[in-house]
C-alpha cells in the first residue's frame, strides 16, 4: 500500500521542466506519506541538512528533527489524519531542524498536502533562515546596546546638571566663586557630549580599510590630544595595519588622554581638589610609548604612570566607568568600540614598570 518509495521521485525526474524547477530551487523540498516516510527529497536537502537525497528517501522524516520534537510530530500527524483539523497555520512555520552534524538550523517551513494515485502525500518546502535569525539577534543586541548607552548618557548629563543647579544656588546665596565653578561644569557637559557623539559613531563596522602607518597616526593623535608636558615615544618598527585611519587616530587620542589624565597629576586638567590617587609618580609628567607587540601581530600603548591602581579591571572598558572626578568614563569605551569595529582585541595589563599598558591584537 501507499506510494512506492522512488515512484514519485521517478515521476518528477521524468518531467524535465519541473525536475529542474524543484531540484535547483534554493529551498529544500521533502515529501512524506501518512507514516512520515520520506518519498522524495530534492537536491537542496544536501546543502540544508547534510544528507544526499537518496540517503533520506525511505527514512522517517524525524531523521532531520531535533529529538525533542519527534514524539510530538507523530502525534500531530496522527491527529491530523484522524480529524482533518490543522493545529497550526501551514505556511511559514518556524521550527528548528537537525543537520547531519547535530547542529540545529532554524527553518521556515510551508506544508502542502496533495494526493497521488489516491494516497495522501505531504510536502514541506523548507528554507534555511539562519541569516535572518542571526540578523534579528544582532538587531536585538544593538537595541540593548543603545538602551544601555542612552541610560548612561542620561545619567552622565543628570549628574553635572545637579552640580550646576547646586552651584548656581550657592552663587545666588552670595558666593561668587561658585560662578567660576559653573564654567567647569559646563565644560564637563560639553566634553561629555563630544565623547557621546564620538562613541555613537563607532558602532558601525569598518567599511574601507587601507594600509595605515601606525607611527604617523600616533604622532597626529598626540598633537591634538591635549597632552600637556607629557612625552610621546614612538617605536620605529611599528607594523602597518589595514584599518580606518580616522578611527585609529580616535583610538590613540583616547588612550593618550587616559595616560595623561591618570598618569600624572601635574598634567591633569580639572579642579584643584584632585586627590593624589595615582601614587608616587604624581608630579612627573608621564611618558607614553607606542610599540609593536612581541609577536608582531599588533601594538601596545604603555605609560610609566602608576598603573590601574584601584580601578576595576573588568569595568575599564564599560560605558561611563571612571575613577576620576572629572573624567567622562567614555574614553576607553570609545577605544573598545574602535577595536571591535576592526575585529581586533584590546587588553589592559600592567607594563614592565607597573604603568598602564594597553595591547591591541590586530589578528
Amino acid at each position: 500500500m501507499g506510494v512506492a518509495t522512488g515512484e514519485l521521485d521517478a515521476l518528477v525526474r521524468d518531467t524535465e521542466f519541473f525536475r529542474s524547477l524543484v531540484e535547483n530551487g534554493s529551498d529544500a523540498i521533502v515529501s512524506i506519506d501518512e507514516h512520515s516516510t520520506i518519498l522524495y527529497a530534492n537536491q537542496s536537502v544536501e546543502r540544508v541538512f547534510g544528507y544526499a537525497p537518496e540517503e533520506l528517501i525511505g527514512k522517517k522524516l524525524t531523521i532531520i528533527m531535533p529529538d525533542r520534537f519527534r514524539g510530538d510530530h507523530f502525534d500531530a500527524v496522527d491527529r491530523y489524519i484522524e480529524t482533518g483539523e490543522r493545529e497550526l497555520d501551514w505556511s511559514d512555520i518556524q521550527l528548528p531542524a537537525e543537520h547531519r552534524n547535530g547542529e540545529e538550523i532554524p527553518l521556515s517551513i510551508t506544508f502542502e498536502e496533495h494526493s497521488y494515485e489516491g494516497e495522501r502525500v505531504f510536502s514541506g518546502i523548507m528554507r534555511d533562515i539562519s541569516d535572518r535569525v542571526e540578523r534579528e539577534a544582532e538587531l536585538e543586541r544593538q537595541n540593548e546596546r543603545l538602551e544601555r548607552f542612552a541610560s548612561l548618557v542620561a545619567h552622565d548629563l543628570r549628574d553635572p546638571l545637579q552640580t550646576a543647579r547646586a552651584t548656581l544656588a550657592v552663587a545666588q546665596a552670595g558666593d561668587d566663586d561658585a560662578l567660576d565653578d559653573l564654567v567647569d561644569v559646563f565644560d564637563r557637559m560639553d566634553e561629555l557630549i563630544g565623547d557621546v557623539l564620538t562613541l555613537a559613531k563607532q558602532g558601525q563596522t569598518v567599511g574601507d580599510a587601507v594600509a595605515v602607518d601606525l607611527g604617523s597616526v600616533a604622532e597626529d593623535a598626540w598633537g591634538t590630544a591635549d597632552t600637556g608636558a607629557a612625552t610621546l615615544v614612538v617605536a620605529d618598527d611599528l607594523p602597518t595595519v589595514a584599518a580606518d585611519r580616522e578611527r585609529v587616530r580616535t583610538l590613540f587620542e583616547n588612550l593618550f588622554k587616559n595616560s595623561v589624565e591618570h598618569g600624572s597629576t601635574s598634567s591633569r586638567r580639572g579642579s584643584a581638589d584632585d586627590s593624589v590617587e595615582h601614587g608616587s609618580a604624581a608630579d612627573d609628567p608621564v611618558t607614553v610609548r607606542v610599540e609593536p607587540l612581541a609577536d608582531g601581530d599588533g601594538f601596545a600603548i604603555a605609560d610609566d604612570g602608576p598603573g590601574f591602581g584601584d580601578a576595576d579591571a573588568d569595568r575599564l572598558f564599560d560605558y561611563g566607568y571612571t575613577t576620576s572626578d572629572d573624567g567622562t568614563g567614555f574614553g576607553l569605551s570609545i577605544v573598545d568600540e574602535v577595536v571591535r569595529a576592526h575585529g581586533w582585541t584590546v587588553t589592559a595589563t600592567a607594563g614592565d614598570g607597573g604603568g598602564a599598558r594597553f595591547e591591541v591584537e590586530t589578528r
Partner: protein
Amino acid sequence: MTGESQGRSTVLVVDDEPRVCQAFELWLDGKYRVVTATDGETALERLDGRVDVVLLDRHMPGLSGDEMLDRIREGDHDPRVAMVTAVDPDFDIVDMPFDHYVSKPVDGKTLEEIIERLLELDRYDGSLSDFYAVTEKIATLEAEKTSHELEASAEYGTLVERRDRLETAVNDQRAAVDDVEQLFEMATGDREDNT
C-alpha cells in the same frame, strides 16, 4: 548644640560633589540640622543616633552609595535612607534596603517633601514603612521600565507579591488606627514629584 536645634530632625547628606552638599545644606538648613559628607567613609563616621534621614548619592568613588546603604543597615542606627542619584534605577534596586529613590537633578522643595514623608513614617510601625518602601520601588521601576520589561522580570513579580501581602497587613491595622489612612494614601499616591 543650641536649644533651637534640639527639636529639629537631623539630615545627613552624602554626595561626592562638594557643591551639591553645599546647596542641599543651604536649601534644608532652616528646617533641619544638616550634616554633610563628600565620601562614604566620612559619612559613616558622621552617622550617629541623631541622624533621622540620609540623602545618599549612589555613584561615588571609594565606598559607593550602594555599599554604604548596606553598611548603614548592618550598623547600630536605623535612619530612613533616600537614594538621590543620577543612576537610572534598574531591577537591582529590588533588593536594596532604601526607603525612597529619586532621580537627580532635584531642588530644595523636592528634598523637603521627601524628608517630611520619611519622618512621618517613623511615627508608625514597621509594616507600614515596609509597605511604603515596596510601593516606592514599584513606582520607581514602573516609571523607568516598559511594561514588557516589567512582565519579564522575576524581581518585579516578587515585589508586587510582597506589596500585596503587606497591603493586607496594613489594611488589618488600618481598622485599628484611624490616622494611618492619610499616610496610606500618601504612600500609594506618591509619584507626581518623581517622574
